[in-house]
């Protein structure tokens, strides 16, 4: 239990560092450490498949893509985009929306009974596969359409159309 509190503290600390880091590249690196602490949380919950997927896909692939995206922006004159008035106003509106959501969810806050897992091995790959291919078959198949649309979207955005005559 004390291990959980230690890792939770680390997660919150690095999540705050993501926000407070001035350099966007440092911010992404802190995000990688935050995701690593999430991996430890998954292992503590015995959700081993999720832990490994989180480690490989999120830490390994998606955050590298984040860094990639940062490199498309101009890193030489940092902070110049943030000065426009529109950015400030939209940031204020988004922050206020988050605040309203947080306050609204705080109002319905209540202490629930602790969750007792019937089966401690619930998060192992074998059990996950059984559930995925019976109960959650439709979301699984729909996720393939999601991946397909992501593929088409990426190609459409990044590929230059050949000039038609």
């Amino acid at each position, binding site marked *: 239990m004390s291990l959980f509190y230690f890792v939770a503290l680390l997660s919150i600390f690095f999540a705050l560092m993501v926000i407070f880091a001035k350099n966007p590249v440092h911010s992404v690196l802190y995000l990688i450490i935050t995701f690593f602490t999430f991996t430890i949380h998954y*292992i503590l919950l015995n959700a081993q498949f999720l832990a490994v997927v989180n480690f*490989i896909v999120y830490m390994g692939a998606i955050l590298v*893509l984040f860094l990639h995206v940062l490199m498309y922006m101009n890193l030489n004159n940092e902070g110049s985009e943030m000065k426009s008035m529109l950015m400030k106003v939209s940031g204020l509106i988004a922050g206020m929306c988050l605040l309203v959501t947080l306050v609204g969810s705080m109002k319905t806050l209540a202490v629930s009974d602790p969750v007792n897992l019937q089966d401690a091995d619930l998060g192992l790959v*074998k059990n996950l596969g059984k559930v995925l291919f019976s109960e959650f078959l439709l979301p*699984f198949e729909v996720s393939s359409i999601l991946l397909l649309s992501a593929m088409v979207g990426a190609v459409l955005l*990044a*590929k230059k159309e050949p000039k038609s005559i």
Partner: protein
Amino acid sequence: MLYLPDISNRMEVQSTPVNYLPIIFQILVALGFAVGTMVVTHMIGPKRRTAEKLTPFESGIEVIGNARQPFSIKYFLVAILFVLFDVEVIFMYPWAVNFRELGLDGMIQMFIFMGTLLLGFIYIIKKKALDWE
């Protein structure tokens, strides 16, 4: 070969968070070695800083321009397509573990999933998205 199922059963029972302790030790040792060597070499090595020494090492060639330049979007396309197919392969893992129990039904379900993504792959090939112009 005969007692192979027995081993897999035992491993399944033993799979608890505590089993990840050796991995954490390994990470600690690996990180500790990397960070430790870097810190120690910085501390015990002599420091003679000249303008020549502080330039990035480019195999003896003079440094040209700035490293922080935006680069081509083609790299990003390859990277994001890699991630999408990576996710597909990860979905195959829980299926492969339960391959025998799921039988023909599981195979058809998985093939529908893979067929949809194969359509995407055909689209990519037809659009010549992976061609390097």
